[in-house]
C-alpha cells in the first residue's frame, strides 16, 4: 500500500504532541500552570462533548447540569457510600447518560431554538433540585465539602493518594484523550454521518426512513456520558462542589469554547477551550473590569471570525499549499450556513 505522506505526517505530529504533553509535568513544577493545564484538559473534553451533541443540530445550554449530575453522584458514591473513585467515575458518567437519555427522549423532538430555551429551563430545575431537595444527601446550597481525592490501590504496594497536582494532570490528560478518541471514532463512523445529515437536513433524513429521535437521543446521551465523567473528575479535583458551580454561565462558557473554536471542525473544541483558557488568564489583570472586557472581546472576536478559529483554516490552506508546493487537495467541512429552525 503506498504510504500516504499527508496522514503519516499528521499522525507523527499527533504522537509528538501527545508525548510532549505527557512529559510536561517532569519539568514544569509550577502548581499554578499545572492547574491551568488540568482545567484546559477537562474544558476540552466538555467542549468536545457539547459539540458532539451539536452535531445533530441541537444546542444544549444545560450541559453544565450534566457535569453537575456527574459531580454530585460521584461525590455521593465515594464520600457517603464508600465506593472507589475508579468505579464512581464511569458510574457517574452512566447516571448522567441515563438522565440525559430520559430528558432527551422528552425534549429532543423539538427543534433548534425551542430546544435551547428548554435547556435553559432544565438548568434552572437542576439548580433548584440540588439546592433544595434531598439536603442530607446533596448538602443544599452548601453543597458537598471535602470530596475525597482518588486513591490507587495496587496489590503489595502502598495506596497512592492523589495529593499533588501531578497525578491529577495525568488523569485529566488521559480522560481528555480517551473522550476525544471515542468521540472521534463515532463521528467518523456511519453513525457520525447520520448525525451530520440530521444537522444539515433532518426532514430529508426522516424521509429516507431513519428514526430521527433514535439518533438525536443517542448523540445527546453520549455527550452527557462524557460530561458526567468529567463532572466526576471535577468533584474529586476541586474537592468541594456547590450548586453555584453548575450554572447557566458555565454552560455558556462551554458553548463559547465550541463556537470560538469552530463548530464545524473536530479540533474546534480543542482550539476554542485553549484560547478561552489563556484569554481568561490574561483577563485577570483587568480586576473589576474583567467581565466587561470579556464581553467586548467576545463580540469582536465573533464578528471577525464568525466561523470560529478553525473556520479560518480553509482560508489558510491555499496559502499553505502555495508555500509548501504540495499538490494534495483537501475537502473541508465548512459547516453551517445558518440554521433552519
Amino acid at each position, binding site marked *: 500500500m503506498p504510504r500516504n505522506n499527508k496522514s503519516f505526517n499528521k499522525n507523527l505530529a499527533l504522537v509528538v504532541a501527545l508525548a510532549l504533553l505527557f512529559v510536561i509535568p517532569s519539568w514544569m513544577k509550577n502548581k499554578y500552570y499545572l492547574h491551568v493545564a488540568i482545567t484546559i484538559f477537562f474544558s476540552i473534553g466538555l467542549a468536545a462533548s457539547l459539540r458532539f451533541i451539536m452535531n445533530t443540530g441541537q444546542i444544549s445550554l444545560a450541559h453544565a447540569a450534566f457535569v453537575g449530575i456527574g459531580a454530585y453522584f460521584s461525590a455521593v458514591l465515594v464520600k457517603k457510600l464508600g465506593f472507589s473513585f475508579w468505579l464512581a467515575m464511569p458510574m457517574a458518567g452512566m447516571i448522567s447518560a441515563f438522565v440525559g437519555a430520559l430528558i432527551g427522549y422528552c425534549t429532543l423532538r423539538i427543534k*433548534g431554538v*425551542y430546544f435551547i*430555551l*428548554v435547556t435553559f429551563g432544565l438548568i434552572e430545575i437542576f439548580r433548584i433540585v440540588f439546592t433544595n431537595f434531598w439536603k442530607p444527601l446533596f448538602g443544599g446550597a452548601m453543597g458537598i465539602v471535602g470530596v475525597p481525592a482518588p486513591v490507587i490501590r495496587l496489590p503489595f504496594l502502598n495506596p497512592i493518594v492523589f495529593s499533588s497536582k501531578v497525578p491529577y494532570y495525568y488523569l485529566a490528560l488521559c480522560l481528555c484523550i480517551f473522550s476525544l478518541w471515542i468521540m472521534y471514532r463515532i463521528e467518523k463512523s456511519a453513525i457520525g454521518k447520520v448525525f451530520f445529515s440530521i444537522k444539515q437536513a433532518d426532514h430529508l433524513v426522516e424521509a429516507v426512513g431513519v428514526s430521527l429521535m433514535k439518533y438525536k437521543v443517542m448523540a445527546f446521551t453520549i455527550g452527557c456520558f462524557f460530561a458526567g465523567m468529567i463532572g466526576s473528575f471535577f468533584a474529586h479535583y476541586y474537592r468541594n462542589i456547590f450548586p453555584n458551580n453548575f450554572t447557566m454561565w458555565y454552560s455558556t462558557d462551554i458553548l463559547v469554547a465550541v463556537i470560538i473554536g469552530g463548530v464545524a471542525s473536530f479540533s474546534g473544541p480543542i482550539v476554542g477551550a485553549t484560547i478561552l483558557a489563556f484569554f481568561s488568564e490574561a483577563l485577570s489583570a483587568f480586576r473589576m473590569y474583567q467581565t466587561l472586557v470579556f464581553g467586548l472581546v467576545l463580540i469582536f472576536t*465573533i464578528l471577525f471570525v464568525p466561523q470560529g478559529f478553525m473556520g479560518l483554516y480553509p482560508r489558510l490552506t491555499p496559502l499553505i499549499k502555495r508555500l509548501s508546493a504540495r499538490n494534495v487537495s483537501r475537502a473541508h467541512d465548512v459547516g453551517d450556513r445558518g440554521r433552519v*429552525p
Partner: protein
Amino acid sequence: MILETVIQSVFNGIMLALVYILIALGLTLVFGIMRVLHFAHGEVYMLGGMLTFYFASVLGLNYFLALMISIPLLALFGILLERFFFRPIRGNFDAALVLGLGLLLTLQSSALIIFGIEDKSHPSPFQGILHLFGATLSMERLGIVPIAVGLIIALLLFVEKTKPGKAMRAVAQDLEAAQLMGIDVDRISALAMAIGSALAAAAGGLIMPIFVTEASIGGPALLKAFVIIVVGGMGSIGGVVFAGLILGFIDSFGAVLFGGPIASILGFLLLIAVIMVKPTGLMGHGE
C-alpha cells in the same frame, strides 16, 4: 381570607403577565424576522428601567416624560445593534448566540459601572391602595395595566394593518419570498429590533417604580420571556399573550401555594409539558 388571596393573586398575575408579555413580544419579533435569539434582550429591559430612573430621579423630569425619552432612545439602540452587530453575521445562528452573550456581559457590566451598585427606584405616579372584597390592590400596580395593554394592542394593530407591519409578517413567514416581493429585509430587521427594544424598554420603565431596577435584573426577565415564547409558540403574538398570562398566574399562585423554589420550577415544568405535547408551542405555527 382565601377569597382575598385569590383576588390578589389574579390581579397580580395579570400585572406580572403584562410585563413578561412586553418583553417576550420583543424577543419573538426579533426571532421571527432575524432568526436569532437575542440574548441581550433582557439587558434592554434593564436599561429601560435605568434610563427612566435617571431621567426621572436624577434629572427630575416627570415620570411619563422620562419614559417617553427612554423608550425611543433604546429603540435607536436596537437599530444600532442590528446594523453594526447582528447584520454582519446574519444567518449564522451560533455566532449570533455568542454575540448576544457578549452584549449581555458588556451591557450588564457597563450598567454596573455607569449607574452604580445600588438599587434604584422612584415613586410611582399612581399612588394609593384599593380594597376590593378585602384584597389589596395597589394603584401603582394597576396603573401599568392600561399602559401595557395599550402597547400590546398598538403592536397588534401595527402588525395587522400597516404596510411595514405586513412586510414584517411576510419576512417572518418566508424570507426569500418576501425578498422577491421587493421587501428590504435590512430595514425590516432594523424595524423589528427597534420595536422589540422599545417594548422591552417600556416594560423596564414601567416596572421600575413598583419594584427596583439594578444591573442584574435582565437575566431572570429573559428567562421568563424564553418560557413564554416556547409555550406560546414562536412568531405568534396571540400565543405570547396567552402563554404570558399562564406564566403570570403560575408565578402568582405558585408561590402562595408552594413557596418560592417549587413555584420557580413550575413554570419550567409547564414548559416541558407543553413542548412534549405540542412542540411548536400552544399557538405556534409549524416551521
